[in-house]
């Protein structure tokens, strides 16, 4: 549906995007993840034709953005980081304007009503946009993107500035939209991408560093898993008992948790040989009660840090050259 090939964007000497390629299939929710200033917005602005690339191609549903900008743009609904709202218009007037601007060929009144119902802004239709709260403004921005039922939706940080309840609503809304549209959404919040997206692309300093299914992202990035343990008892005895258990690769002693001699341990385990049971019996035998034992799986957060760090060091080396 959306195909991005070898995208490069340079601002003078600064390379904002360095050879980025990816595709988004029809009906997929693609998460675009990266720290601030990684090039997420730049990529989105190029896909939507707001700015041009230095080199590389973007194809939206068969239309190349440079050869057929009008065709490609008519297939995209775009919600930029700051919703492009005319604050001196009412919501209804604004949506009518955007409807005409996009040359949508659908029954006007019914279609705008429908979109308003989807994003739940029916009750504010006749209010001036400047008087709306941030959450409502964001929804009006989304409504504007939905006009004309474009096959591709591009949402740049759609949940920034919303309160937790609104964030959950917005996520559910986007999930619902993902059934009918191809959605590309950017975020620097990992849990958000984890919650909404089928696939995630991580971008750092203008380079693509990871591209995988959300579910398998943390798996693919770590070869072993780990356990977090809190045990009461003398650390040295516990350590040696733990090391003896089959399946335990490494034990690290953490901080003391409470006064009664409870310590925290992080245990690196063999992926194919879960030592949980063995640990339980070993501790029982050692007379050291286990207060807490849970899987210390690599969170997306850690996976993210892991993939973004090496690139940073590589580019530093590049700078010295």
């Amino acid at each position, binding site marked *: 549906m959306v195909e991005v090939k070898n995208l490069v964007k340079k601002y003078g000497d600064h390379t904002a995007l360095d050879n980025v390629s990816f595709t988004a299939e029809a009906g997929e929710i693609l998460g675009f993840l990266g720290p601030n200033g990684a090039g997420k917005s730049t990529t989105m602005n190029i896909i939507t034709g*707001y700015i041009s690339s230095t080199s590389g191609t973007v194809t939206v549903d068969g239309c190349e953005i440079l050869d057929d900008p009008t065709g490609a*743009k008519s297939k*995209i609904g775009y919600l930029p980081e700051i919703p*492009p*709202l*005319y604050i001196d218009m009412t919501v209804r007037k604004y949506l009518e304007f*955007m409807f*005409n601007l996009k040359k949508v060929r659908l029954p006007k009144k019914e279609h705008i009503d429908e979109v308003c119902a989807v994003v739940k802004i029916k009750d504010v239709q006749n209010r001036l946009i400047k008087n709306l709260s941030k959450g409502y403004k964001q929804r009006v921005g989304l409504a504007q993107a939905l006009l004309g039922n474009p096959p591709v939706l591009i949402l740049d940080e759609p949940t920034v500035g919303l309160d937790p309840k609104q964030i959950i609503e917005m996520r559910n809304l986007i999930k619902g939209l993902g059934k009918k549209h191809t959605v590309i959404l950017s975020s620097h919040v990992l849990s958000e991408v984890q919650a909404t997206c089928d696939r995630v692309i991580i971008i750092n300093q203008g380079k693509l560093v990871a591209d995988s299914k959300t579910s398998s992202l943390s798996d693919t990035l770590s070869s072993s898993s780990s356990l977090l343990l809190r045990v009461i008892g003398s650390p040295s005895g516990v350590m040696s008992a733990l090391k003896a258990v089959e399946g335990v690769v490494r034990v690290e002693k953490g901080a003391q948790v409470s006064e009664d001699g409870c310590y925290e341990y992080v245990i690196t385990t063999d992926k194919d040989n879960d030592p949980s049971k063995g640990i339980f019996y070993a501790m029982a035998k050692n007379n050291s009660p286990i207060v807490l034992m849970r899987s210390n799986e690599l969170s997306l957060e850690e996976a993210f840090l892991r993939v973004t760090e090496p690139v940073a060091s590589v580019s530093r080396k590049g700078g010295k050259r």
Partner: protein
Amino acid sequence: MGAIIKREVSAYFTSAIAYVVMAVFFLFSGMFFWNMLYYDSSNLIIVFSSMFMVTLCVLPMLTMKLLSDEKRQKTDQALLTAPISVWQIVLGKFISAEIIYLCCMAIYIPMTLVVACFTAPQWGIILCNLIGMFLLGSSIIAIGVFISSLTESQVIAAVAGIATGFFISMLDNISAAIGVDFVTAIISWISFMTRYQNFYSGIFNIADAIYFLSVIGLFLFLTTRVIDRKRWS
């Protein structure tokens, strides 16, 4: 393009801009008209010639926010990612300002009718004046649209636009002060004043009309370049 014109015209009337510009325009036209009647004259040329500087200095108020505000509010993202060309955006903005300008010029209908009550008006000369005035105003609007595309601040756009209008209206005085022959020749060729003088004297010279149309075309073209340059840099 129709959507942009419709939005801009209604934005002119929801903000105070259209009313202020029209009020100032009507005030000066009325003042010059009253002056004309006071001296028992029915010669509308007095009004049209006096309006030269007013037109140049008032109309930049119409164009000050057309493109500068889009950039500041980030609404240009909606326009530039919509399936329309940059030309359509610029033309839409230009035409919406033209519509307000035509509303301003509508004041000359009752004035002409008042004159017609006393004497048979010289329709040819009046028509020539109206065309001249429209072309003059359209040129400064096109220049104003261009200036508006250069900045994000409507205050800067307004000040620069009015200063430009003032400079254009003073151009002939400047060339007279310089007093070098070839400079005077060049300036009188590009001077709006010299061209406009022909119109209000009742001379419809096709070269003058083409000159104003070229100015409009040039500045609208430059505006599209400015918008595109930002996207390509």
